[in-house]
């Protein structure tokens, strides 16, 4: 393969109004059909996060399911050395931070079409990718770097899903250790906060938001609801329902209204059924 040579021979890159460059991609050299990748430099105002430096990151849309991160890395290294590849099922900010999880505990990778964030070593590679001509397709599976799909891939996945129990136990243990530590730290922090609220030598108490013992604001939604209902019930209990004659008359009126309403409802149901010919027994 000599992409550089072809590049000269071909026409201009295809750039569509959205600012995206269209690259074509085919699975193997002799494939008949091509997918279209849409690439653009990564540009987001709000995000200044670590993983995606603005000048060196390429944003790719429509990455086919058989392109894993490794495959994408290899595909794009023709434009310059790739630092990292991140595949996501939809565009968005990078993953929230949390304790590092082993692969067995992470959510399964999406197998559909992805969007990719490719971070190059240098920003020149981004523009190189963007100026790649439309009619020179990227090829996923070559003889040098075969990509497994179908039965081969499934067998491989099945084989790789095995893990030694003791290794798994280690993972669990180390996670739990970390968890306990975090929890302890948290407890420590809370204890310190509580300590701050103790009397100091001079007898002063630093007053912050409510402390133990004081009647605090209910802090769950359910509790909020409960208090509200309690109030309502109290109000209701105080009311007398059958005291005045008009109240008595009202209940009777309500009863007849109920009957009428039911009658009307039934009538409507019947009308509906009649329209649907539901009364023809045969």
């Amino acid at each position, binding site marked *: 393969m000599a992409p550089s040579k072809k590049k000269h021979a071909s026409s201009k890159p295809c750039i569509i109004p959205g600012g995206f460059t269209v690259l074509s991609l085919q699975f193997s050299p002799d494939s008949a059909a091509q*997918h279209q990748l849409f690439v653009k430099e990564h540009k987001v105002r709000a995000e200044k996060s670590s993983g995606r430096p603005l000048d060196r990151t390429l944003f790719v849309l429509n990455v086919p399911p058989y392109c894993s991160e490794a495959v994408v890395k290899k595909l794009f290294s023709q434009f310059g050395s790739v630092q990292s590849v991140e595949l996501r099922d*939809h565009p968005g900010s990078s993953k929230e931070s949390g304790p590092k999880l082993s692969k067995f505990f992470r959510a399964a990778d999406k*197998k559909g079409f992805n969007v990719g964030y490719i971070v190059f070593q240098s920003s020149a590679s981004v523009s190189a990718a963007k100026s790649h001509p439309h009619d020179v397709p990227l090829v996923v599976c070559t003889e040098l770097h075969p990509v497994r799909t179908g039965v081969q891939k499934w067998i491989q996945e099945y084989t790789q899903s*095995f893990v030694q129990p003791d290794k*798994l136990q280690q993972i669990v243990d180390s996670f*739990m250790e970390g968890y306990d530590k975090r929890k302890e730290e948290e407890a420590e922090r809370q204890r310190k906060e509580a300590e701050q609220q103790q009397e100091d030598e001079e007898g002063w108490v630093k007053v912050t938001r409510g402390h133990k013992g004081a009647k605090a604001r209910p802090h769950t939604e359910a509790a909020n609801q409960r208090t509200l209902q309690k109030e309502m019930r109290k109000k209701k209990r105080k009311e007398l329902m059958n005291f005045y004659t008009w109240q008595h008359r009202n209940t009777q009126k309500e009863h007849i209204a109920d009957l009428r309403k039911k009658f009307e409802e039934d009538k409507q149901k019947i009308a*509906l059924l009649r329209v649907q010919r539901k*009364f023809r*027994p045969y």
Partner: protein
Amino acid sequence: MKKKQAVAEDKVEMIPPESSQEEQGGEAPVKAKRSKTEEVVYHPVKLSRSDLYRPPTAEELSQLKEAESLFHCSLLKMQMEELLKEIALSERRKQHIDSFIQTVTNLLQTVPESPEVEVSDLSWLSGAVKVPFLLVPKTTKGKFHMAPPASVDLIGSYPLGTCTKPRIMVDLAVTIPADVLHPKDVINQRYPRKRALYLAGLAQYLTSSSDIGTMRYSCLHGNRLRPVLLLTPPGKDSSSFSIRVHACPPPGFFRPSRFHPQRNNIRIEWYTELQASKSERIDPPTPHYNSSVLGDLLPRAHLQFLCAISSQCSSFANGVALLKVWLRQRELEQGTGCFSGFLASMLLAYLLTTHRISNTMTAYQLLRNSLNFLASTDLTVNGISLARDPDFTAPSLAEFHSAFQVVFVDPSGHLNLCADMTACTYKQLQHEASVSMQFWDNPTVDGFHSLLMTPKPMMRTSDHVFQLCELVKLQSSCKKLNLLSELMDHSGNYIHTVLPFILSLLQQGLGQRIRLLTHSLSPDPEWSVESDAPKHRDQPPLSFGLLLEPELAASVLERGPPADSPKASEFRQLWGSRSELRRFQDSTITEAVVWDAKTMCQKRLIPRQIITHLLQLHADIPESCVRYVGSMVDDVIKTGNEVHSTGEEESLLVVQSYDDLSRKLWRLEGLPLSITAVQGAHPALRYTQVFPPLPMKPDYSFFDREKTTRSLVPKEGKPCPAYVTPIKVICHMEGSGKWPHNALAIRHIRTAFHIRLGELLKKNHNYTCRPCPTHLDVWKDGLVFRIQVAYHREPQVLRESVNAEGLLVVRDNEEVQALEMATIHKPLLTSTLHGLQQQHPCFGAVCRLAKRWLGAQLFSEHITEDTADLLVASLFLHPAPFTPPGSPQVGFLRFLHLLSSFDWRNNPLIVNLNSQLTAADYTEIKNTFMGSRESLPVMFIATPKDKTLSMWTKQAPTVQILQRVVVVAAECLKLLEHQLMDSSQIHDIRVIMRPPLDAYDVLIHLNPKQVPLLSQAVDPPTVTFSRGVMTGGVGKSGGALPVIDYNPVSLYLEELREAFGDLALFFCDPYGGTVIAVLWKPKAFIPVPFKTSQASARSIEVTGEEVNTVPNVKAILEDFQIMGEGLVKSVEARTEKWSF
């Protein structure tokens, strides 16, 4: 004074709103009609305040009160009124009928006279018209000539006003003039023959008239002695009604006492045409012949009687109409020995005259009371009589009972109205009536719908059905049973002669095994006037239905009396050579018959063995004549190779192995927390897995080995190994303060539990285990159990989150729902349905048939296993108007009927598991359903634990799929019932399992080598592959872990759905299907502007500044091939419509 005036004014004011209300009422139907073309949707009623609270009038009050107190609710009253409207004859139709009657009467009056000839001389008839009579024996004495009728009268339901749609029959009695007949004509079929000749004469005259459409012969209730002439009006409404012309003798022409059931009117010498050596044999009585002649004498008297009754009771006609609808839905109102509409009105008359019902009752009450009477009275033992003061010549009830099976004597006291009815038919009627009463009293059942609106064809009512084909063979059974005199009584109709004997024989033989034996009523034959009367053997086959007693029907042993008891010889006589002496464990020695059957599916067919044996032995009916349709559909879930089995035994093995595992789990020691519950959560553990997992023994040489754990993994290049189903088991752990309050941490702790459980099971029982973060696989008895540890507070932890203000909020999300489904709802459903299986032994089989069908029709993804099981459960829990299914086949038929006929749009399907729902719950569910119909799943199934959400059908099916299911189910039901009932050719039952593939856009053909469940395909595959399974005993424990849950087809489908789910739907039969059908979603193919969130698998089209995207079909089709490398054989794009 002033006050009074005010009141009067009030009244005046009250009138206008009243009238406006009426106007509204009048408008409503018009509106409804208008909306018919549009969408028919239920909107909650909104009455304005003034409407609701206006002062009531006395009339309105009483109307509301009546509706409230008389009926379950006023809805039922209205439903009945609407139903009556539907079946009543319109005024226009009546005018039509009246004018046609007038024409026919006028025509009949002008029949010309003809010269007198011998009865046997038919030369006066032109060849164009035949005599509607089977002339056996040929000769009769007597003279005959045509003459205009003495009178032409309307009789039957039409003048009485009880005539209903459809099949409107107007009966016209034509009185034969007295000089044509002779008082002695009663003897030797002379009168019936003359009557037939007279009808033929009428027919010949009428053929020349243009005022008459078609003319056919028929006979009254299948009695060949009583032919009738059917006339239809000419022109387009020829099929709308027909006139039935009866020929009758002049009233009082014969003395009724001649027709005493113990008298003889057919002489043996004449009938056998043998001069029977002047034997002193007394001619036997001929009750059936007598009653058929007598029946002709009385119709006018009956009409008078009924008219008198109905004039007293205002709702008589409506009551009869309802009863007729009820009978017709049960196929009891037509054919030989039926309970006709005439009998229904006679029954009501009886109840009125005996004051069991009063004249003021409504139609609804009449129906209810007559059903109650039928349910509680046995006319086969205690006959009833309408005769007030019969004359002394009238026979007594006892005499009637000795001659007939069912006794209901008419007002004259001479005629048994139920002469042709068999005891079985009456028992069926009684059974239906009592079942109907039960449903009616049950507030949770829609009585109206189940009693009057649902048809009950025999195929869907009886658990087993068999047919007697080749009815000619019954002639020889007449001989074998020595029934000459009965044959003579039935004038040669050997079918009806033998029928009662066969029925009692079967009843005796099947005994405790059945609850009810029913038989089809042979329909009235109809033939054109130009052809000869059809022979008896041309009748359609007789069908018999069995309602099985579930506990006893499948027992292999028929235990008789002790060897020395006098009854032993009777027993031996009944069973013939099959009866043998046996010694039992309680040391008694008795006669016994043992049927040979090993598996459940063979045991279910023991009634068939009994029936064929008895019919062969006693009635000379060869086995080839008996067409048993009890279990034809079961074939599709048959598994075993050597011994036929429908999987009950295999399921039992799985359940036993699970029970053992659960016991062992309970006993494990050394776990940090104790186990609080072990629950199965897999269809195999409730006997409803279509193909229950089979214990298997892997052939190690067929597989590769994984490096570290030495487990088996599939080898590249070999066929896909046999599929091993992981059987899901949920193991609940004790709650404790040690459990962390964090979702991630819980997951890690759970993993630790899996590891620990695996270690313990390995140490104590030597089971090979494989712990994973989500589950633990245990290899035991050749099966794989997938244990998942659950912690009851985990859903709660997942729900909680702290929002920005520090408030703890509890919110449902998908993850929680999935978890609760897996750890709470599925185990609960499994145990509940397991209980249902214990009550109804064929529940599992019905579920499996139903799911096999759903799978074969490519619907499994949309109607999930749990949904299907619930649907089937509803058939067992709410069988109305049937009884719970007693065989897989009838259950399956009802499943198809439920799918095709249930009104999912307007009704929730309520499955009252464990009868936990009360009537109040039912109304509550219905109301909430109606209130928020739009936002609820299209297929709404409510259970006691899930009244408002229908969680099982939340995801699927969609409206379109459900519509398709309904259509396909209706089509399959029609086809299947036809095939089961039609004995004329050999059918392929599997037709209903082959889906129509022409509706799909792309077909992906799979390589059978890589389809592990190939052997479960509907049509057994032509090639089989070695799949690494060894025959022979299965190891209890130990051994390398087999390849678990590895199915390339489902992996492929999963990838396809994930990648192209928003562009297309993928359908596949999970049980060995080798085709994946793809349907493009039309919406996805509309070009849309380019968006970053919607670019998957799409290509762009640039036109100026606008960028639109459409699916890149060419690349997608290639992706199908690439993603299924090795599995996909070919991708066939069938439609060109998307490849622009």
